[in-house]
């Protein structure tokens, strides 16, 4: 039998059902008596709702009910909760305006839900939703963060002055000012981190049910069913947890956008209770564009103080972050503790000060999207470092090496709160440069020039933070949730194993990876281990999957639970083999008496545990099942080096990524094939951000990129082959040594791409290009600078 333990590229067991068309996604579910919900949404960015006339809709064929915000309010339903509270510089709490489930009084962004129509068929519901007559009084809107934070800007919430959600800072301002005063060079850069629309391929969907005894079930496209149960049950619908079950079955991609508690989940659950019929809602893609939380959308100014030799002395950053119209579940944490705390990157910059203003605008709420804050930090820093290189004349690789935190400096305390546990940036850099044949680049550039093409190469050496934790520290910083993960491991009487995990798989392949991990540690065959996730009726209270945490946090909980299984197994084995517990060793699936050939297989122990005839029953409970909660001591810190090579056609401005190398330190790897796939997917989203994608609004807040016709998703012919390498330093504080791999691709790649584009255009006097570097943008730069070139 092939090796299927830790480190083996085992083929995924989930693939069987997906390839056969037997996946089980929310929209695939249908219940007897099911009815359909259609949401009427605002088509305008900012308006007062003067009246809603639902008479025609209510009278339309098949319509069962029409509900508005007033109906929800009458049932005592308030707003959607926010899961993180940031405090301002002066210690006061952030502005946290009401986020109604269905709009009341005002709509604040295109896509804001106003009413729900429930009908016998989907077509009837949609038809009737069109019949609602809503009398709006349009108000001036604002979409751009700079415009929204300017004096006199329209107010998204009347009670939030200046549209400022919070004005926060971190770091030692005095030390930074002093360092700038003695710097040889001060290098400044203004950047925009473009707004992205996540676009998981499965549109969101929700199916609410309520049985005769008042037990509710919500099947939903979620990355974290227990979080939804807590938020929706306790804070929105006031359904006690024992009467509320959340099922997140096969989910077709998330990338962060399916972490949050969305209005539609509450709407279908509440309506199912009122109507006592199952109520199903499935988003059309156009609804996804205007109701799934968007990502990024920062405007920043950064300054680096540098000494004569090129050592970074201090970094000063000021950022405006777009929150959208309301606070999505974890939005406030993204531009603060997931962004500004990462501004040290891989460098030993001794002083850092960052201030962040979060601003409300008439746009879809913004929250964590693949990387969440860390891509914004990495882009800022890695662009800035390249500009420092350009302006000081120091080679960009040398400049990075000069400022790297050396491998022997770990654990390393940064000036912005985090303590990195491990890393080796020189190692990932060297490996990536080798794999990308960096040394051979000048020859490739010359060859491209002969063909009339502009070739450039860019690198980024980045670091990020995964598995946000520990709970008590996050709590002190404003988190309103725990950040542990849970695992329950059930060894069945005959020795097969079921793993119940709080982590959720929506593409990550947990059913394979976690089975490998548990099979390896318990010494049972891979096919004897099953993984259950995604149903609060089956799994203990866990926090789900986000922030590349599933293995580092969820896997560590499994290790803890297995430790308990083994400890109990040793006591049973000691009893059965009449030995002392201290003499029992567990190895390769068997309990052995040290120094003898006496051994009992795990299956013999589990059988004894469930059929406790010969069993230490006075001191030990029967059964072999253990639960463990793992609350990490720290974040994990994956990092690495990405190298991107591009070729630009000066006639069209089209950039082709001709080579991409990612060498990442993700700690211990369980399944290299899956890790490689995660990195490739992340890099594709990063290349998408750098070259193709950008949510577009007009000044007032009308969404201009509202479909796949206007929002450029990366397609197969936009992307290169992506070479992935891993170099490993182990995480020092979790039992697996794993760090996380889900987001590294999307974090490391955008600056590598833009650094390559700027490098390709270096003869055109280009210092910086904001993302996405579209053909139009690049062509315009080339066109504007051509006469100067010709004259030289």
């Amino acid at each position, binding site marked *: 039998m092939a090796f299927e333990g830790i480190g083996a590229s085992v083929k995924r067991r989930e693939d069987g059902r997906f390839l056969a*068309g037997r*996946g089980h996604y929310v929209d*695939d579910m249908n219940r007897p008596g099911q009815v359909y919900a259609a949401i009427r949404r605002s088509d305008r960015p900012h308006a007062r709702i003067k009246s809603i006339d639902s008479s025609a809709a209510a009278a339309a064929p098949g319509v069962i009910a029409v509900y508005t915000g007033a109906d929800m309010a009458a049932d005592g339903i308030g707003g959607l909760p926010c899961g993180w509270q940031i405090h301002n510089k002066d210690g006061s709490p952030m502005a946290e305006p009401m986020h109604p489930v269905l709009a009341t009084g005002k709509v604040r962004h295109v896509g804001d839900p106003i009413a729900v129509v429930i009908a016998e068929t989907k077509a009837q519901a949609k038809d009737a939703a069109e019949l609602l007559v809503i009398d709006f009084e349009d108000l001036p809107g604002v979409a751009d963060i700079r415009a929204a934070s300017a004096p006199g800007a329209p107010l998204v919430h009347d009670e939030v002055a200046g549209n400022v959600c919070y004005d926060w800072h971190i770091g030692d301002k005095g030390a930074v000012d002093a360092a700038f005063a003695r710097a040889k060079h001060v290098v400044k850069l203004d950047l925009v981190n473009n707004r992205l629309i996540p676009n998981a*391929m499965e549109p969101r969907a929700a199916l609410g049910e309520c049985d005769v005894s008042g037990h509710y079930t919500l099947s939903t496209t979620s990355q974290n069913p227990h979080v939804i149960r807590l938020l929706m049950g306790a804070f929105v619908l006031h359904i006690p947890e024992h009467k509320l079950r959340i099922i997140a079955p096969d989910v077709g991609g998330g990338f962060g956008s399916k972490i949050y508690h969305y209005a539609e989940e509450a709407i279908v659950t509440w309506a199912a209770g009122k109507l006592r019929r199952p109520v199903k809602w499935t988003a059309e893609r156009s609804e996804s564009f205007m109701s799934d939380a968007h990502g990024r959308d920062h405007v920043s100014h950064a300054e680096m103080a540098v000494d004569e030799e090129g050592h970074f002395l201090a970094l000063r950053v000021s950022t405006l972050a777009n929150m959208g119209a309301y606070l999505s579940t974890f939005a406030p944490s993204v531009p603060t503790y997931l962004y500004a705390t990462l501004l040290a990157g891989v460098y030993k910059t001794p002083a850092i000060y960052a201030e962040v203003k979060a601003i409300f605008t008439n746009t879809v709420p913004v929250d964590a999207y693949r990387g969440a804050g860390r891509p914004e930090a990495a882009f800022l820093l890695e662009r800035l470092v390249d500009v420092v290189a350009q302006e000081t004349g120091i080679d960009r690789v040398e400049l990075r090496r000069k400022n790297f935190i050396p491998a022997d400096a770990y654990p390393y305390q940064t000036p912005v709160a985090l303590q990195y546990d491990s890393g080796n940036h020189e190692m990932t850099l060297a490996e990536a440069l080798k794999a990308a044949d960096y040394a051979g680049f000048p020859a490739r550039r010359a060859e491209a020039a002969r063909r009339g093409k502009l070739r450039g190469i860019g690198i980024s050496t980045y670091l990020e933070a995964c598995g946000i934790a520990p709970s008590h520290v996050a709590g002190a910083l404003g988190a309103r949730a725990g950040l542990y993960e849970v695992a329950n491991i059930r060894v069945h009487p005959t020795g097969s194993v079921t793993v119940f995990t709080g982590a959720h798989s929506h593409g990550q392949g947990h059913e394979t990876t976690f089975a490998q991990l548990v099979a390896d540690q318990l010494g049972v065959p891979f096919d004897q281990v099953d993984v259950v996730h995604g149903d609060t009726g089956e799994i203990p209270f866990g926090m789900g999957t986000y922030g590349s945490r599933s293995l580092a946090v969820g896997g560590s909980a499994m290790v803890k639970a297995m430790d308990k299984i083994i400890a109990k197994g040793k006591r049973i084995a000691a009893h059965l083999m009449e030995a002392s517990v201290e003499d029992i060793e567990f190895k390769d699936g068997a309990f052995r008496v040290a120094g003898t050939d006496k051994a009992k297989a795990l299956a013999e122990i589990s059988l004894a545990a469930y059929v406790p005839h010969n069993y230490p029953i006075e001191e030990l409970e029967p059964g072999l099942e253990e639960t463990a909660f793992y609350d990490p001591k720290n974040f994990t810190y994956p990092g690495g080096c990405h190298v991107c090579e591009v070729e630009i056609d000066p006639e069209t401005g089209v950039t082709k990524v001709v080579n991409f190398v990612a060498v990442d330190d993700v700690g211990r790897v369980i399944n290299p094939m899956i890790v490689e796939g995660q990195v490739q997917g992340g890099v594709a989203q990063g290349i998408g951000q750098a070259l193709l994608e950008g949510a577009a609004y007009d000044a007032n807040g009308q969404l201009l990129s509202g*479909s796949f016709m206007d929002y450029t998703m990366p397609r*197969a*012919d936009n992307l290169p082959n992506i070479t992935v390498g891993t170099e490993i330093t182990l995480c020092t504080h979790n039992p697996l040594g794993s760090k996380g791999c889900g987001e590294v691709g999307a974090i490391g790649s955008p600056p590598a791409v833009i650094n390559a584009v700027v490098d390709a255009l270096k003869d055109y006097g280009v210092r910086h290009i904001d993302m996405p570097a579209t053909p139009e943008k690049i062509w315009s730069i080339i066109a504007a600078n051509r006469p100067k070139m010709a004259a030289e």
Partner: protein
Amino acid sequence: MPTISLKVNGKAVSAEVEGRTLLVELLREKLGLTGTHIGCDTSQCGACVVHVNGDSVKSCTMLALQADGAEVTTIEGLAAADGTLHPMQAMFREHHALQCGYCTPGMVMSAIDIVQKHPEGLSEEQIREELEGNLCRCTGYHNIVKAIAAAFPLMHQKHAA
């Protein structure tokens, strides 16, 4: 409502449909073939690709009425009766060409059509161009392209035999 008759995955079926019912709605909602997915509303994503009379078709772009009398193959109809995967399905698994699985049925149906339409051979660049009509958000396409290239000899060898 008019009644249509067609063959789906080799089986004769008939159904009453509204004039506006899309082929994908017929498959998913009337016939319970939920392997074919809906990922957009502008015929861009390709999650709904099926074969109609041997050609790949975005089933969100065709009325059910237009499929009257047609032979339709969906992802559920690809594997042999004993469960043996079609070579394209097998290569998708072998090369880790799927993650969340949502684009996968449409991707596999398109991929089969691409390979069938190019018996002369396919370069990597051609595969990437031919995949223009199918979006995947998870894989970055790298492994999908590899899987299609690997399925090519298996499919044409099978046809030759």
